[in-house]
């Protein structure tokens, strides 16, 4: 009995050593991929709706006009802004992360209040980072975070002030942040254990850099105004099913451009 136990231990040690060697090798051999795509609204771009902010004149100083941000579509090229694509992994500690991105930046992640809107509208950060809620306006704001796994917060941010919040845990879904003083103000915070989240810009272009190439990766697409999950897309003219907003792909090293992804108007509310 004793003998067999020690043999077993030896075997385990050996296996462990082998694994770690190969593991180290594979890190060295690991190649990285960049993922690019452009989301386009397949129809006439809906115009942003103006917001009645007349109750707080400070929001309207210098002829500032506030419009809704829940459906921002570029009028010239149809690009959809604020679509988020994030890597979906159960355990980020087992994920291969590009050495440059391995550690979360020590810098604070900024969520600013500018002219009575949240900037950026969708904040992306990693768990363990600090979120700096800043108020660049003359008026007072508050930021009400409906976190699920982290502690929900609702802080007042006076004009010119800022407030730091340490966000410890990953959030499965994007967390809404509201300013209750200005009911139109709504933004989102995406907190992940890994750096692989992309948000589309004003042209609908979305980039995620430094992804591990050569292995199957699962992503989830999200837009705040989606009508249920975005489960059907048209990639370069070809219809594809993204079940419940999930898409799985294996990337080749270097740039991977999916091209133009058209989303039908019925994908949105």
């Amino acid at each position, binding site marked *: 009995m004793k003998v067999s136990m020690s043999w077993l231990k030896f075997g385990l040690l050996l296996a462990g050593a082998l694994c770690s060697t190969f593991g180290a090798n594979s890190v060295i051999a690991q190649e990285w991929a960049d993922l690019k795509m452009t989301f386009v609204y397949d129809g006439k771009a809906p115009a942003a709706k103006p917001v009645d902010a007349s*109750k*707080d*004149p*400070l929001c309207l100083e210098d002829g500032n006009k506030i419009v809704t941000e829940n459906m921002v579509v570029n009028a010239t090229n149809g690009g959809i802004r604020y679509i988020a694509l994030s890597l979906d992994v*159960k355990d980020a500690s087992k994920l291969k992360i590009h050495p440059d991105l391995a550690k979360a930046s020590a810098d604070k992640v900024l969520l600013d209040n500018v002219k009575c809107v949240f900037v950026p509208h969708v904040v992306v950060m990693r768990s363990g980072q600090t979120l700096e809620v800043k108020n660049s306006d*003359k*008026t*007072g704001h*508050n*930021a*009400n975070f*409906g976190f*699920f796994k982290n*502690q*929900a*917060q*609702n*802080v*007042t*941010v*006076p*004009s*010119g*002030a*800022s*407030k730091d919040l340490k966000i410890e845990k990953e959030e*499965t*879904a994007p967390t*809404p942040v*509201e300013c*209750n*003083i200005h*009911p139109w103000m709504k933004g989102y915070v995406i907190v992940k254990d890994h750096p692989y989240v992309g948000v589309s810009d004003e042209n609908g272009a979305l980039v995620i850099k430094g992804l591990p190439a050569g292995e199957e990766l699962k992503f989830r697409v999200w837009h705040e105004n*989606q009508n*249920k*999950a975005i*489960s059907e897309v048209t990639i370069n003219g070809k219809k594809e099913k993204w079940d*419940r*907003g999930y898409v799985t792909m294996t990337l080749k090293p270097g740039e991977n451009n999916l091209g133009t992804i058209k989303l039908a108007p019925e994908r949105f*509310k």
Partner: protein
Amino acid sequence: MLSCWFFAQTAGLGPVAEIDGSAGAQNPANLGAKTPLHPFDFGQYLFKWALCGVRPQFWRTLALAEGWVMPRLLNGFRAKRLAPMFGFAAVAALSVLSGCYSEPHFEPNAVFRFRVEAETDQDQAKAAEAVNALVADWFGTPDRPQWPAIAETTAATDSLLQVERLNRAAGPQRSDREDNHYGLYRELCSNCHGLTGNGRGPTAMFLDPYPRDFRPGWFKYKSTKRGSRPTRDDLYRLIKHGIPGTSMPAFAAIESHEHDKKKNDDLDAVVDYVIYLSVRGEVERLLLYEVANDEGLLEGARARMSDQPAGSATTEVSSSSQATSTTETSNVSTASNAAPVVAQPVVIESTFEIKAKEVFVDVLSKWAGSQEQVVNAQLPAWWNEPAEHADAIAQGRAIYLGATAACANCHGKSGGGNGLVRDYDDWAKDGTVRAGIEPADRAALKPYLAVGGLKPVPISPRDLRLGIYRGGSEPADIYRRIVQGIEGTPMPAVALKPDNPQGLSEDEVWQLVAYVMNMKAEVAGAIPAEGDVASRENVDEVQP
């Protein structure tokens, strides 16, 4: 039979058996062991057997008998035509009784499941089923509460509540000769807060604000930090004194009804049970969230359920813990729960169960650690100095209207609560906004209402001029509301020094407290305010 039985009753003039009212008399199975077949017990046994054992035949016979007797009696009133009606009425009335007593169950959190389904865009029936099975195994039923005995949580549990006292608040309402009350939660709380503590009791729709849903673990009025759980004292205080401006009554009479001057811990038992419901509900909620977002966990949960056919585990555990038989007749009122609740060992093997344990430990540590989260609120020295206090009120007014605290943005310049916000609390947002539904959109609300969500009611900033403070009217209460905000509501925490250099100092907050507490008097004109009070009423537009 009846006459024999009554004869037996009148014949026995002394105490037949010493019945302590807790576990004895109403349980024939127990009685049998004490005084077998005494006429008294036998009569009760027969009666109960007739009521519940052979229900259909018994009631049918009784109804037929009534149908035969009544018309003959009523013959003299020319009411023969009423005969069928009597028969029908008797059958209808008695068929209601034949339901006897069926053990109630906790309601699954359908609204939260609805939210998770919206978030994941997937039917979560299986996840909900698995989670409900585990939660039932770990926490029991409304009549037979349980508490999972997990080594890591023993210390936290002991500091939080008395598990064995859970029987006091659980089960149907009853009391005994020593004036020990049982089923306190159903006597005092459940009509509004619901049997599950989901804030959805029968009367819920009529109340404004809605009765609190304990399950998310959010509590508004407490001495602790926002996001922390309240202390036992916080809960006790709310229950004892009620909440002005709401339908929450004061239960001080329960505390003082002690008869034989022994320590009366009824309200403590209620606090225990509220914590129990909250912990149970939060474990259900968090676990459902985990399982819905992790298919691996769901597989483990499914495997667990196929191992244990539904209900078997529960029955086994409850029968051992309550030491009562589970036959149908004794089921009727064995739920007196006089037997103290004992923490039950639970099986923790699969990843699903390990996750459940993690969640439970996490939830419990939040509750057990609440005492450390109490916000210190020490009255400043000037508070009781009239001259300085009057100064502070004037200072507080400037702070109230100023941009840093921004009170007037919502509460209005004169405190009337008519600032510019139309908003909802987190309990309403949980199943609406966070499920992608606009609360004001009546058509979009339909699926939310269908799963049992209460119609979202806008939350309005408090009218401070009334002087009604829901969370307590001590200066320290108002102070805590200001520095921590009110959890689950749009009321934010004020920016404070030194954390925030632009924020208020502690003393400034106290000045604000002084001003807020003076608003009622200010409006009433008892203390002359700066400017004309009446005209200020009309200029309530927000001007930050």
